């Protein structure tokens, strides 16, 4: 059975168990147990996988309820219930999303719980993706469930908090055997079907447009390839077309928000056949729109790059001067603008400093290569 189809059964089964009266935390554990058993199906799944998962999860739930002596009365009550005929509604699906993105949870807990309960991943897959021991991830998830059992029911999330969680998952990228970016896109698609909000469509478009350029972003050794040097023939044109269509439909509803504005910027990049065709003036305009919704130093830093392209490096440096210099990548942007402005000695120094300040290895290596390149230009005179 396709692993994604199997994952889709997980939130469904949780909702069925909760409908039958199970508490969320125990239901979620029971379904996880059934999921781990289902992974052993291999190429010969049962005739009705949904019914199988629900039945096995329900049995596991009853076992867990039975092992807690205090729950004896409830157990009798559950056993008496007819086991079938439960169809969760759209509303249930949305509630499950909201519960897992409760603002009572820390971002990392909300991410882990969403991936397990809504995404249908196993604890081990999530642990591998985030490079922590499986026991740590298991604890993080049970803690998250304890938190929402006490605080989350009164403080469920909403579409905004769910979008933030999905965007965090998307940005985590790829390690272990699950592609988290693809997983985030799948869940955002679901959310877009459940919640009629143009911002969710904006987020989906943004993810598709970024994801479409993934293959060209790094070379075969994992080194960063800057936009200017990317092989645009490797961009996924089908994904770009889908992202642009979703964005246009969302923008047509005239309720602009930060995700739609970011997607518009990504679309303008995706739209340029060659890097010199990029419409930087319009990109700056979209950054100005974006500032209305998300006036953050990072947005202003990005805007300074765009201004540098649209109006020249001096204008870019002027825009950069208004951004606090402790923002990640500030030094990298300064280095780039000074290089274009012809101050190679300063640029080389700033690239080296940007390498020291990088928070990931690929970016550090990239900035070191830039520093080496500029130093070579300097010594060649």
């Amino acid at each position, binding site marked *: 059975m396709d692993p994604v189809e199997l994952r889709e059964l997980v939130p469904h089964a949780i909702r069925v168990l909760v409908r039958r009266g199970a508490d969320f935390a125990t239901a979620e554990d029971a379904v996880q147990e059934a999921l781990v058993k289902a992974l052993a199906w291999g190429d010969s799944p049962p005739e009705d996988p949904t019914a199988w998962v629900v039945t096995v999860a329900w049995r596991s739930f009853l076992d867990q309820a039975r092992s807690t002596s205090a729950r004896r009365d409830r157990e009798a009550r559950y056993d008496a219930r007819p086991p079938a005929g439960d169809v969760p509604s759209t509303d249930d699906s949305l509630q499950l999303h909201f519960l897992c993105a409760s603002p009572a949870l820390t971002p990392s807990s909300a991410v882990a719980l969403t991936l397990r309960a809504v995404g249908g991943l196993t604890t081990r897959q999530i642990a591998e993706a985030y490079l922590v021991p499986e026991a740590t991830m298991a604890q993080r998830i049970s803690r998250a469930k304890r938190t929402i059992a006490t605080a989350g029911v009164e403080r469920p999330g909403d579409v905004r908090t769910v979008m933030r969680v999905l965007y965090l998952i998307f*940005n985590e*990228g790829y390690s272990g055997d699950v592609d988290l970016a693809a997983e985030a896109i799948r869940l955002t698609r679901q959310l877009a079907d459940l919640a009629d909000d143009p911002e969710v469509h904006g987020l989906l478009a943004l993810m598709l447009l970024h994801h479409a350029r993934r293959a060209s972003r790094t070379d075969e050794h994992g080194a960063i390839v800057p936009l200017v040097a990317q092989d645009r023939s490797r961009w996924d044109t089908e994904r770009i077309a889908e992202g642009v269509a979703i964005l246009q439909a969302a923008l047509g509803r005239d309720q602009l928000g930060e995700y739609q504005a970011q997607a518009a910027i990504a679309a303008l990049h995706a739209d340029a056949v060659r890097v010199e065709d990029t419409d930087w003036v319009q990109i700056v305009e979209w950054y100005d729109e974006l500032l209305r919704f998300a006036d953050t130093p990072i947005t202003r830093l990005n805007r300074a790059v765009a201004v540098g392209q649209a109006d020249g490096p001096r204008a870019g440096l002027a825009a950069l001067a208004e951004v606090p210099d402790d923002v990640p990548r500030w030094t990298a942007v300064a280095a780039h603008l000074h290089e274009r402005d012809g101050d190679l000695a300063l640029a080389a120094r700033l690239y080296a400093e940007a390498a020291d300040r990088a928070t990931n290895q690929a970016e550090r290596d990239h900035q070191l290569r830039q520093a080496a390149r500029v130093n070579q230009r300097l010594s060649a005179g």
Partner: protein
Amino acid sequence: MAKYLLLKHYRGGPTPICDLPIDEWAPGEFDDHVRFMGEFAARLQASGEFVDAQALAPTGTFVRSGDDGAPIVDGPFAETKDLIAGWMVIDVDTEARAHELAAELSSAPGPGGEPIHEWLEVRPFLSGPPEHGGDDHTACLTAD
């Protein structure tokens, strides 16, 4: 989430607050110290923030390749300037949380059952490549 290394130095950090060498503590004091470390690790396990904890033997050797590629060994050295005793790796939401946990670990009991306020070095891990990066556009030119 970000990973941090909490590095425990026997030598090489700022001047220690507790200057009584550990081998001069009372046996019970030493046991309490070790128990505290174990309980701290268990608390991290339970909070879902634990990644790794290791202790190192105090003496090590320096190794490099020779002209023929074979290892050339220097040492062992027992009296290096900087002596790393061990580490913990944590996975936490914020740098502030990493500092909070480091402070908690630093308050392990020593002589007289008093916290030793040991200096711990906190180092962020360089993460893997940002797949897309919320700040993707920065990078239009620099990295994308």
